[in-house]
């Protein structure tokens, strides 16, 4: 899970009193730990993926079922991320800049998906939309498919990635306070003008940070999606599900080739996240 952005201004100056030995020991432990638990598996993924050469790697990615899983994952992310972006910004704006009854409840609800196991997140949709569920029979009579089809996958993904944007923005916007907005309003700006000219530029990097995390999770989600997918080859398998299938078919090279796409995504996410974090800190310092 993501840690919220550090919103306190960075305290400059050193407060190190420990001897160098202690410092270096601690640093080496952290680095060895990182190498063992993060870099080694990552290297293993790429190592396995390219084990039989570049052409085998590319062939594995060109396989129709793989392409369709990539397409489905992109569609899912393309629907999920904008919706959660809209919701996240709206919710964060309401929570950080206004006070209203039920505000705490809303904050708690936004956090709900973090505290629920992904399997449960998928199962609730099966219980609601499944054939034995509340509105499943009605849906079937009207020939509408939710679970075991793309809509179910998107719903489960939206649920799981719900908190990401809002969770990043709320502390940031609360730290920025509402003075600038109040000044804009006093100077005669409308609500929308205030939002687009004042609020939005201030939270730009926070949004990017939230979106990239949301996107990474949307593309990488396994548990919830697995429950509602139905695992129909070439139709309802997302990339993570397809990796599992390939692995189970002794198709190790292809499994790791497809997995390497997710690893790439993770690396890009990490990069953008670092840039966004740095920019946010800069922005706060400039204020």
């Amino acid at each position: 899970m993501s840690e919220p952005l550090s919103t306190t201004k960075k305290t400059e100056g050193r407060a190190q009193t420990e001897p160098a030995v202690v410092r270096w020991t601690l640093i080496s432990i952290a680095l060895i730990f990182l190498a063992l638990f993060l870099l080694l598996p990552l290297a293993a993924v790429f190592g396995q993926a390219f084990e039989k050469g570049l052409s085998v790697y590319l062939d594995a990615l060109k396989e129709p079922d793989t392409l369709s899983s990539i397409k489905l994952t992109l569609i899912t992310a393309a629907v999920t991320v904008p919706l959660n972006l809209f919701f996240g910004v709206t919710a964060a704006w309401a929570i950080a800049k206004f006070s209203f009854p039920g505000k705490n409840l809303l904050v708690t609800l936004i956090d709900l998906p973090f505290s629920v196991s992904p399997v449960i997140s998928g199962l609730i949709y099966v219980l609601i939309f499944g054939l034995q569920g509340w509105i499943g029979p009605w849906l079937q009579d009207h020939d509408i498919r939710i679970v075991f089809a793309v809509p179910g996958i998107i719903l489960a993904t939206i649920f799981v990635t719900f908190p990401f944007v809002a969770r990043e923005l709320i502390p940031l916007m609360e730290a920025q306070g509402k003075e600038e907005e109040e000044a804009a309003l006093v100077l005669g700006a409308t609500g929308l003008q205030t939002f687009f000219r004042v609020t939005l530029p201030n939270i730009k990097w926070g949004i990017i940070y939230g979106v990239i995390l949301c996107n990474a999770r949307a593309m990488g989600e396994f548990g919830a999606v697995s429950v509602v997918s139905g695992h129909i080859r070439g139709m309802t398998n997302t990339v993570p599900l397809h990796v599992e299938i390939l692995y189970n078919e002794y198709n190790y090279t292809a499994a790791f080739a497809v997995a390497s796409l997710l690893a790439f995504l993770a690396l890009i996410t990490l990069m953008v996240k670092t840039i966004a974090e740095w920019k946010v800190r800069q922005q706060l310092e400039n204020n």
Partner: protein
Amino acid sequence: MNIKNIVTAFAVLALTLSSSVASFAADITLLNVSYDPTRELYTDFNNSFARYWQQKAGQKVTVKQSHGGSGKQARAVIDGLEADVVTLALAYDIDAIAEKGLIKPGWQKELPHNSSPYTSTIVFLVRKGNPKQIKNWDDLIKPGVSVITPNPKTSGGARWNYLAAWGFALHQKGGTEAKAKEFVAKLFKNVPVLDSGARGSTNTFVQRGLGDVLLAWENEAFLAINELGPDKFEVVTPAESILAEPPVTVIDKVADRRGTRKVAEEYLKYLYSDEGQKIAAKHYYRPINAKIPTRLAKIKLYTVDQAFGGWKKAQKTHFADGGTFDQIYSSAK
């Protein structure tokens, strides 16, 4: 009989009337919801059926596949996964779907041979050279032999493994239920890890290198050898084992609603054709047509009905909460 004739007559009539339309017959897709070890079989079979149906009916048919643990797949169909046909590991799982009204009762009589177009059994996969000299079921309970099998609570294949061992003990001289239970309990003392599915166990054995012997579907064992190299593993066929009859059926509700009944029925019937049987044999299933050659060793097979009085009873006695597996496994800890 009369009704059947009338229906046939109507069908013929309808076909003639729509023959002009049929030449423009739309492409059709079927969904075959199956269990884990049949992936390769059905990938092959679906292509063959598509060619056959194109020739016979001039219609392009695409069969989509979904694979997973047999019980899990049945559950998904019950919850609305739109399977035109299911081809699962055991009749018990299809009965569960029938109980919800998605399949007409008596489905198992619709097709020959209890609706099982191929059979399989449980064999041993051992490391090359068989270092622990595992030949038969009683070798599995020797001290120091590590046995890999999935969890019977979640895996259909594991239930077959369990019952195969039980049946073997039962058939020994002076074999009683109590002795069989003791035998299976000893066997499970030798199991270091219980995976949730058959493929998981196979990966544990071949990839992670755990265990001396893997209890596996016969076709899974040969597939593992073909995929991973005959220089590493070999199959040991015990003197006797259980006869697994994985049944197939049309999901009536889905096929009727989607208008795919005819193709779905032809699809299953094609499994019984010479071509279908050959494909089953090629993927190390035992064809029910004795004329189709098979590479598999002769083996004395007993059925669940003979040894356990049917799947419902076996399920209740052995795998329900508090059944023999729970008793064995909680006392083993």
